[in-house]
């Protein structure tokens, strides 16, 4: 059974030929261990530039672990083996300046996590750490980031208010604005809408579709409708393995693997 899966997954990955596209980020033979136990045993994925790729799968399938490994947020928690290729460099190697790398590969978390600072300072935080201190420059970046996250009009008069006073959906969009303020290449989102109501969720989705023009987006989601609504490519994770990776339309209408079919039609998960 285990072997069977592996073969099918190899086959199904072949089904999507990424060589014809521009690749922003790819993993080769990624393994993640928590102590002795292996959370990801096989991760070979390639993410196309300026597209949204979603990672779906049942709880505990390793999709979040995989995502967090991509910008090394698992560094002090788990052991990550294998290669993560970004601009021809293996960013999983020890020679990489992790902090610098995270400027290019940003992340938004499941739970909105603004700092207990003002809206303005939340966005300016990372810029200040980089040494950007000119008021005018900061103002500009704060405005463009908030505009990109589609919340400028709502908060432009309250920039000095505490970010904690915002609603959950606004907080999450602030977190997105904060992440894009440092102008990353790639944006990783770990179930960004799972703690939000349907209206906020659809606003976040609209924002992501907007952002796709300038950013490569990789999103973990529990919500299969969300994956089919917004993503160009979908990877299906199960038991720490990528079982299928294809264009979203294909994977939802014509899954190659039985388990994928079972999952997306709601038979388990």
């Amino acid at each position, binding site marked *: 059974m285990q072997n069977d899966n592996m073969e099918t997954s190899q086959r199904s990955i072949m089904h999507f030929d990424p060589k014809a596209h521009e690749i922003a980020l790819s993993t080769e033979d990624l393994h993640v261990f928590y102590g002795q136990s292996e959370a990801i045993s096989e991760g070979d994925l390639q993410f196309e530039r300026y597209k949204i790729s979603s990672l779906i799968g049942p709880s505990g399938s390793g999709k979040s672990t995989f995502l967090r490994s991509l*910008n090394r*947020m698992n560094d002090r928690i788990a052991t990550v083996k294998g290669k993560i290729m970004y601009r021809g460099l293996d960013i999983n190697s020890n020679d990489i300046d992790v*902090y*610098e*790398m*995270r*400027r290019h590969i*940003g*992340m*938004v*978390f499941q*739970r909105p*996590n*603004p*700092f*207990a600072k003002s809206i303005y300072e939340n966005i300016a*935080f*990372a810029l200040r*750490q*980089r040494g950007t201190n000119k008021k005018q420059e900061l103002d500009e970046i704060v405005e463009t980031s908030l505009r990109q996250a589609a919340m400028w009009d709502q908060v432009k008069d309250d920039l000095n208010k505490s970010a*904690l006073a915002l609603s959950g959906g606004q*907080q999450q969009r602030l*977190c997105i604005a*904060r*992440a894009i303020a*440092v102008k990353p290449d790639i944006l990783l989102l770990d179930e960004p809408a799972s703690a939000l109501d349907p209206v906020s969720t659809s606003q976040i989705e609209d924002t992501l579709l907007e952002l796709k023009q300038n950013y490569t987006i990789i999103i973990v989601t529990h919500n299969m409708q969300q994956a089919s609504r917004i993503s160009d490519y979908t990877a299906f994770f199960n038991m720490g393995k990528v079982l299928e990776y294809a264009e979203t339309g294909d994977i939802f209408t014509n899954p190659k693997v039985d388990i994928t079919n079972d999952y997306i039609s709601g038979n388990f998960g």
Partner: protein
Amino acid sequence: MDKIRASLLKKSVASKIERRGKIISLSCLALIILVVFLIFYFVASRGLATFFSNHINLWSFLSGTQWNPGTVGTNGQPAVGALPMIVGSFLITIFSAIVATPFAIGTAVFMTEISPRRGAKILRPVTELLVGIPSVVYGFIGLQVVVPFVRSTFGGSGYGILSGTFVLFVMILPTVTSMSADALNAVPRYYREASLALGATRWQTIYKVVLRAAIPGMLTAIVFGMARAFGEALAVQMVIGNATLLPQNLVSPASTLTSILTMGIGNTVMGSLQNNALWSLAMILLLMSLFFNLVIRYIGRKGKLNHER
């Protein structure tokens, strides 16, 4: 049917036990409140007697610099000027807090952020052990080690504010450290993640995010340490020299409210001016610890607002 109705109307054993438990815990609470009130009342009645029965001017008590309650001072009034002790208490409290705070925060950061495993395994038990050492031991070490050290390094007799500061620094360090560590631990993990994900370094994360978020908790820790330093009697009395003089420098013998209290209370007759004056000192101590308590609560409440989401 009637059986059920009867059983529903009857007072059950369980509800009786519940009532009894409620009464017991309430009376315990009432007893404690009563004791606190009695202490306040007693200290106040004795302490205020200095001003009402002995007709000492409150201002001359607080600002006078001569302390010798049995005799008459230069101004013709009994010599009950508490200023040297008040100044001594405040100086020693503030200095020891200033010295202890950087060490405590550094240790707490190491314990929680830099090496949590070693922190939990080694440092925390050690700091907790330090809390448990009796103050007379600290005082004795202060007398045998710190006083000669201060004498040979800074001159003077060695007794004084400086020696007291060193001893109190070690005494309050564990309290401030472990409370600061608790404050840092209480900073939600997602703050750290958010900061790291934005490309901030570990140090930037600690300095700009974690420490900032923990400020209310750490202030509470510092004030708590100050309260402890202010109230510490025995160890301070052993190293400060107990001269009721306004401290001229850090190495001249001085005194604190607590040290004069422990020295004098056994040698006075209840109801006499000497005794009442000591009670007045105790009242100042009590009011100060009340003040520290209020500050802690105030900071705590502000801190809670900060973390609400």
